[in-house]
């Protein structure tokens, strides 16, 4: 919504805040209010329904989605799958500053576990569901370099049986025979021309298989939920009345947690069971080499996204998040989504540009806040923290306690070996 000009707000800013002085508490000695914060941070795996995807909780669709996720045959290069950049061993990220697919991406690959919960996908939130998100990398010329026609054909040729068992229909043999190797709107002039040359019926059939394939991938991603970490067991024990928290956190980690919720006030944005407010902020990061509009563009894009909740491909027409989104919110400029901090120790390097190599560098950044935002302004609540080196290390140590138990093997590998050679590269 609109914001009153600075001058009038300064009046409000001048108001004294609450001046009640709390007694200084030792780390691990939690006030009632802090216990509430801890309870709110404890993992809650309950996943809200996704009414945009009728198959979101269908186990067979998830199984197909798992095959597709690990299948490099969906890329005409035969070499790039979702798992290339979302590697289960690295918390479903890729260990690189920016990702390498068919080409190089502009941003860092985020973790997938935890991303299921928020209303927005991508650093700039330009997709509003997991399946709409998945369309992006498939058709991105620097990620999988594929297109919907190639994707649909590959799904039918390589996963046709599973596809038909779940969704029915699909492309007929005649359609497979007459479809061009590649066709899609808007990627490049050749693909676009090939797409326009298709009959309306063929286009519709390709769209059907494409969107259902994406929904199967989303059903799989919904199973990649964050798992319990030492932090959660600590909170359970503390809430059950054990001041030692069952010994689940080391003293340095308890100190780090204490800094996290108290002096450093990280919970201002990293709160709730996934340590994210699901909102967008401009941190004024160092090392931005080019202007990235972030949420200010992402908000516009999601409102007109081909596969958004309001699109004909969505299985619902109740789309409140889209309905009330204000794309002109001024602080969307160069703002990026607050990422989950669960499993953060596995997903270096950090931030949307991958510009910070280690968690220690991240803490150093929040502590010193070097430079200023080249666009708009840095989130005003961020203030240099004045941490000691020990404080920094303890905060890092605490972040390490957010690494969850490993996901079961059945979720972190393809269901059966995928024979990528069955689809020779075209083009």
């Amino acid at each position, binding site marked *: 919504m609109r914001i009153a000009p600075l001058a009038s707000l300064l009046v409000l800013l001048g108001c004294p805040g609450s001046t009640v002085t709390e007694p200084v508490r030792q780390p691990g000695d939690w006030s009632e209010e802090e216990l509430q914060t801890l309870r709110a941070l404890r993992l809650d795996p309950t996943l809200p329904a996704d009414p945009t995807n009728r198959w979101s909780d269908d186990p067979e669709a998830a199984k197909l989605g798992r095959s597709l996720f690990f299948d490099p045959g969906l890329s005409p290069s035969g070499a790039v799958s979702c798992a290339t950049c979302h590697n289960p061993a690295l918390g479903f990220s890729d260990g690189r500053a920016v990702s390498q697919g068919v080409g190089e991406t502009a941003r860092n690959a985020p973790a997938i576990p935890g991303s299921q919960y928020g209303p927005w996908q991508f650093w700039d939130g330009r997709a509003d569901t997991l399946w709409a998100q998945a369309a992006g990398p498939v058709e991105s010329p620097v990620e999988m370099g594929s297109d919907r026609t190639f994707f649909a054909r590959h799904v039918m040729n390589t996963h046709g049986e599973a596809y038909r068992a779940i969704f029915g229909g699909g492309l007929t043999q005649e359609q497979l025979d007459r479809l061009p190797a590649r066709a899609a709107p808007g990627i490049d002039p050749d693909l676009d021309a090939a797409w326009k040359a298709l009959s309306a019926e063929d286009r519709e059939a390709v769209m059907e298989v494409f969107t259902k394939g994406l929904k199967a991938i989303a059903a799989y991603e919904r199973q990649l939920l964050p798992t319990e970490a030492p932090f959660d067991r600590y909170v359970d024990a503390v809430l059950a009345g054990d001041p030692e928290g069952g010994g689940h956190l080391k003293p340095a980690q308890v100190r780090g947690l204490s800094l996290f919720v108290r002096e450093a006030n990280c919970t201002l944005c990293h*709160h709730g069971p996934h340590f994210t407010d699901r909102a967008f902020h401009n941190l004024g990061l160092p090392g931005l080499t080019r202007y990235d509009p972030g949420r200010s563009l992402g908000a516009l894009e999601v409102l007109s996204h081909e596969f958004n909740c309001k699109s004909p491909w969505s299985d619902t027409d109740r789309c409140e998040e889209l309905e009330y989104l204000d794309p002109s919110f001024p602080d969307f400029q160069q703002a990026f989504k607050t990422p989950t901090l669960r499993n953060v120790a596995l997903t270096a390097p950090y931030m949307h540009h991958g510009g910070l190599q280690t968690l220690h560098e991240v803490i150093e950044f929040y502590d010193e806040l070097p430079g200023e935002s080249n666009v708009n302004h840095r989130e005003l609540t961020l203030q240099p923290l004045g941490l000691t080196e020990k404080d920094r290390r303890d905060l890092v140590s605490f972040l390490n306690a957010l690494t969850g138990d490993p996901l079961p093997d059945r979720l972190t590998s393809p269901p059966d070996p995928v024979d990528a050679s069955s689809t020779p590269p075209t083009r």
Partner: protein
Amino acid sequence: MTRAWLVGLALLSGCTTSSATSASVGEFRRTQVGRYQVKLELEPEPPPLGELFRVRATVTLRDGRPVETAKVEVDAQMPQHEHGMETRPRLRPGECDAEDRCKFPDGIYIFDGFKFHMSGDWTLLVHVEGPRGPDSTSLIYRAR
């Protein structure tokens, strides 16, 4: 929503709000100049951070009679952060006649699409253009 009333309101509320903040959601409070009484309710309360919620504003005259034909606007801002909400809430339509004169039975105005995207103190601003003229009020709500 016009910028002007927001400015005015922010100035008016100034630091005097710190004493008035004891009034909370769910209670009637008198508007700045005293023309109306307004009660704000959040649904659900407390609203989960980062999730959409509804605001129900009940507007009455000082004697408690409902004001059913006012123009009512509600906004939420975080003064310390110099920002408002990431969403644009909308008033549910009242009962309107052919000339588009709308009535809000019992003086209840319901707004969908509020969202507190950050924890901290939010100022809820209400502006009423009613039979006694314009008036406004604000209250502070701590979201967590």
